């Protein structure tokens, strides 16, 4: 016998683990035990398998790895005796979960046990199956379980019912097989079977609309009667909880009725009486009764409208809300959330109580209440509600402030009746809990302030006042510094003074003081300091009398270790010092920020892509851009006018879609961006990385020499492609002149820059069904951009419909696709689709074009798709 396995009993092991004083000691004990168990496993020790498995489970619960015991569970399950099976199934459920491959091995054992003569062994197998079965097992064993739903012993029937729930959750397709046997469970008298049967039917209805229809027609009345009998049943000690017979069954029946009644007037009518009875007669002094009332209210709220019942339900919630028990108040808030969509007026009546719950000492209740308040806010009550919330913000606990601030800001932004109120509330929030305010929120505040030209003075004065008292709120200071930088003169001159304001006298140096304190504050971070420097620069021009002082402050940051600050300090210092004459024009007030754009961007319609593409250099030399932009734009516009489908007119459409603001001076820029964005979208669509452009030659050429289209162009193309050196600028003129000779196409040597060299057409893609040719042309004055006309022709005898061409290019290229001439491609080459592509090569003359394409179409209403990569572009494009 193995020297280890004679060792400790389970009880002794637990005792020795509990006696451990340190984690290290515990690890040592566990290691020793694990070693013993492993040894026993390798010797295939059967006498102590039972005990070893139990030990492993305990060790597992402590968090140690126990995978080596998994096979032991399987062996234990496969052994004939009940004790072995019992511990084996327990181990299986504890040590494994449904994603482990090992689980598949147990399917057969479970199947045998489901057919066992001992009902307790069948029960074990059902329990394990119900708790951890995977989709495959569910499929394999569903017939066994279905049979067990009619087993003579109720203990097995109820287990089979719950097991079925697991099966249909894993494999919803199987749901329909169970409808009939589930329906028969509803006629049971045994509470366990009825309980699980109702639950099964509820789940079936959620998964299958067929089941829902069936149960609605055949079972509604029966279920109503069961509930009625249960509600009126005399005292039954076995099922009694707090004077109510089987609240669990009550709740499940109510839940099932909810599913049946939702969206069906007749069925809902059918259950009105019993719901009214449950809602009025149930005792509400114990938790069990409240649980039933809660479920009943949920059902009344969900089924088709019945005014009287709803009033009853809302009244119950009102009672709940004033209950002293926190649990009851919590569920009331929870349910009012759902009720608000049904009857918001009724919920509004409880506003005051709900607002009190926001201030509760219990975090769960606070959170629920806050979310409810958020839903309750509308234009008419926004002012008092916001006031309450902001007042509470002052005394709220730190960990709750983040949520609260976010909600207040959101409410204020959404419902503010006027700008001045919005600014006031935001300033209050900033001075109370500025550090919890998200960046986009205070950015939005600045945007609003710049847009309210009559409130500039008011805003800057209010901020000045607040900074004096709440100077430790970094975000508040940032907004204040920004506004003082922009509107500092209004602060000093009291410009735009409103009647309600208290008079205030601020000198120029007071204003500079604020910024100076902010920049010197120990806790200020980089953003704040950088903003301070900008504000100082602006003030130096607004307040010439302070410019020496300002310069002194700026000078201190010339030695800053932070590059950003150092650079700003140096450059701003130079402006203050040396360029007095242009200073005032340099630091003019910011133009009004565009509110619509900002809010559009915040709404998430524009991802980060925009900011990067705006920052990306435009691939045109500075001077040239302006001169060429006009004709180019015209050209582009022309081409988009030709397009048959006006709804997708190229770049503009894309821009509208993405909500980008166009700065009027650089339409060229914008089109480029649009193209780029289009490409990005496509790249994402096809999700390809950047294929190395130089690897062209290694990839087999798509155009095979044996092609039947033996045009001169093609021959030439094949001649030129093997000899292609990596992106030579010199080759294209050579090859093109040769091509020109053959083609009889007269080049214009006097204006090579305007026309550019002409390029041969290529067969970009050819399969047994489809052929794609590309014709190239260049726009005058823009060597980087190539216009490709793609022609698609159909080689089969059936027409293609829903034809879609997609293309993706590596990052150094920008691609723009115009809409295709048609989406139907006639059979046997009797016509073609053409589509224009515009491609801009930012590495022009260094890298050649490369493109990956995907073509989708319907052939006899079957979806087809073809893919390919095009590497045989003529060089120099």
């Amino acid at each position, binding site marked *: 016998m193995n020297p280890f396995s004679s060792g400790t009993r389970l009880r002794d092991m*637990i005792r020795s683990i*509990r006696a451990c004083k340190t984690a290290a000691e515990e690890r040592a004990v566990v290691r020793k035990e694990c070693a013993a168990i492993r040894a026993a496993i390798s010797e295939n020790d059967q006498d102590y398998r039972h005990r070893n498995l*139990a030990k492993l*489970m*305990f060790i597992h*619960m*402590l*968090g140690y790895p126990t995978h080596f015991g998994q096979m032991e569970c399987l062996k234990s399950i496969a052994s004939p*005796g*009940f*004790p072995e099976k*019992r*511990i084996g199934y*327990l181990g299986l459920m*504890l040590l494994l*979960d*449904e*994603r482990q491959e090992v689980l598949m091995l147990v399917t057969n054992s479970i199947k045998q046990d489901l057919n066992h003569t*001992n009902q307790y062994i069948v*029960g074990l197998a059902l*329990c394990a199956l*119900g*708790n951890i079965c995977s989709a495959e097992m569910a499929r394999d064993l569903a017939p066994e379980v279905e049979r067990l739903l009619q087993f003579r012993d109720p*203990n097995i029937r*109820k*287990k089979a019912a*719950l*097991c079925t*729930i*697991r099966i249909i959750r894993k494999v919803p397709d199987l749901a329909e097989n169970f409808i009939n046997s589930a329906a028969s469970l509803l006629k049971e008298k045994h*509470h*366990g079977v009825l*309980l*699980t049967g109702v*639950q099964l039917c509820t789940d079936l209805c959620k998964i299958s609309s067929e089941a829902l229809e069936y149960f609605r027609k055949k079972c509604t009345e029966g279920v109503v009667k069961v509930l009625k009998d249960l509600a009126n049943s005399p005292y039954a000690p*076995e*099922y009694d*909880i707090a004077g109510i017979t*089987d*609240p*669990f*069954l009550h*709740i*499940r029946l109510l839940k099932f009725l909810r599913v049946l009644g939702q969206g069906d007037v007749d069925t809902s009518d059918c259950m009105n009486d019993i719901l009214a009875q449950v809602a009025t007669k149930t005792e509400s002094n114990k*938790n069990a009764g*409240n*649980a039933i009332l*809660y*479920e009943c209210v*949920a059902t009344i709220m969900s089924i088709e409208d019945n005014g009287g019942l709803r009033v009853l339900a809302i009244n119950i919630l009102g009672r709940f809300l004033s209950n002293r028990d*926190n*649990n009851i*108040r*919590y*569920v009331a808030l*929870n349910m009012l959330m759902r009720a608000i969509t049904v009857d918001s007026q009724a919920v509004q009546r409880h506003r005051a109580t709900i607002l009190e719950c926001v201030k509760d*000492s*219990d*975090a*769960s209740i606070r959170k629920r209440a806050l979310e409810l308040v958020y839903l309750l806010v509308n234009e008419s009550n926004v002012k008092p509600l916001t006031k309450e919330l902001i007042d509470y913000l002052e005394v709220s606990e730190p960990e709750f402030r983040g949520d609260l601030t976010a909600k207040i800001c959101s409410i204020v932004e959404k419902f503010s009746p006027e700008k001045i109120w919005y600014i006031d509330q935001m300033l209050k929030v900033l001075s109370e809990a500025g550090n919890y305010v998200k960046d986009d929120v205070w950015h939005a505040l600045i945007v609003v302030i710049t847009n309210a030209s009559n409130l500039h003075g008011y805003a800057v004065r209010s901020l000045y006042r607040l900074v004096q008292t709440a100077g430790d709120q970094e975000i508040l200071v940032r907004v204040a510094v920004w506004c003082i930088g922009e509107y500092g003169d209004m602060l000093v001159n009291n410009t735009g003074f409103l009647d309600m304001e208290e008079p205030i006298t601020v000198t120029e140096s007071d204003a500079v003081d604020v910024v100076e304190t902010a920049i010197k504050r120990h806790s200020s971070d980089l953003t704040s300091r950088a903003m301070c420097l900008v504000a100082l620069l602006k003030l130096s021009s607004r307040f010439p009398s302070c410019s020496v002082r300002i310069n002194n402050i700026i000078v201190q940051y010339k030695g800053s270790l932070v590059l950003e600050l150092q650079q700003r300090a140096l450059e701003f210092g130079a402006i203050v010092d040396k360029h007095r004459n242009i200073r005032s024009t340099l630091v003019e007030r910011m133009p009004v920020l565009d509110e619509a754009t900002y809010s559009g961007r915040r709404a998430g319609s524009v991802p980060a892509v925009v900011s990067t593409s705006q920052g990306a250099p435009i691939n045109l030399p500075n001077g040239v851009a302006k001169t060429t932009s006009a004709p180019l734009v015209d050209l582009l516009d022309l081409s988009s006018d030709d397009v048959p489908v006006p709804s997708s007119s190229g770049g503009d459409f894309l821009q509208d879609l993405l909500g980008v603001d166009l700065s009027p001076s650089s339409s060229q820029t914008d089109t480029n961006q649009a193209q780029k964005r289009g490409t990005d979208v496509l790249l994402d669509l096809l999700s390809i990385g950047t294929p190395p452009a130089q690897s062209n030659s290694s990839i087999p050429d798509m155009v095979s020499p044996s092609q039947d289209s033996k045009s001169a162009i093609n021959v030439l193309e094949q001649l030129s492609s093997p000899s292609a050196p990596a992106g030579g600028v010199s080759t294209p003129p050579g090859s093109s002149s040769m091509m020109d000779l053959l083609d009889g196409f007269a080049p214009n040597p006097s204006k090579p820059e305007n026309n550019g060299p002409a390029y041969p057409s290529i067969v970009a893609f050819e399969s047994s069904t489809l052929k794609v040719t590309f014709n190239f042309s260049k726009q005058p004055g823009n060597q980087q951009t190539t216009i490709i006309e793609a022609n698609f022709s159909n080689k089969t005898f059936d027409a293609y419909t829903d034809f879609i061409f997609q293309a993706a290019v590596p990052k150094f290229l920008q691609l723009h696709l115009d809409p295709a001439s048609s989406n139907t491609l006639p059979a046997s080459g009797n016509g073609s689709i053409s589509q224009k592509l515009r491609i801009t090569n930012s590495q022009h003359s260094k890298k050649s074009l490369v493109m990956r394409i995907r073509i989708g179409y319907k052939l006899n209403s079957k979806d087809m798709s073809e893919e390919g990569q095009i590497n045989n572009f003529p060089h120099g494009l």
Partner: protein
Amino acid sequence: MIHFVLLISRQGKVRLTKWYSPYPQKERTKVIRELSGLILPRGPKLCNFVEWRGFKVVYRRYASLYFCMCINQDDNELEILEIIHHYVEILDRYFGSVCELDLIFNFHKAYYILDELLIAGELQESSKKTVARHIAAQDSLVETAKEQASSLSNIIAEATK
């Protein structure tokens, strides 16, 4: 649906875990740690629900043990409290005024009882008596098997003497 059941001691030690939804092993440890941090510090007067990762965890404290069950947002929290109490009462009847030590040394029994109460995260039986009867029947099956085994080994021992 109940996604998992946890029994955690006041000190944060795990006494029982049952997972009805798939959580990988690493995730389980994380979940337990997170929830201990969330639940154990809560005061006695507060409500018995915490919101966690879009789910709700209903807990109830019995002496030094916290019984926790994780459910969906729209499940009935009050009913879960009743289910927890139901389980505790059955444990109490089985062990005869149950204490934490009973559950430590007889953890497998606690699991067996739970398996008679819940399957697939749904309640299986609302009668405490029925659960007790089934557990007792299975325990006696184990006892008979043991006796048979020992008597068999006795016979073998006698015979080989």
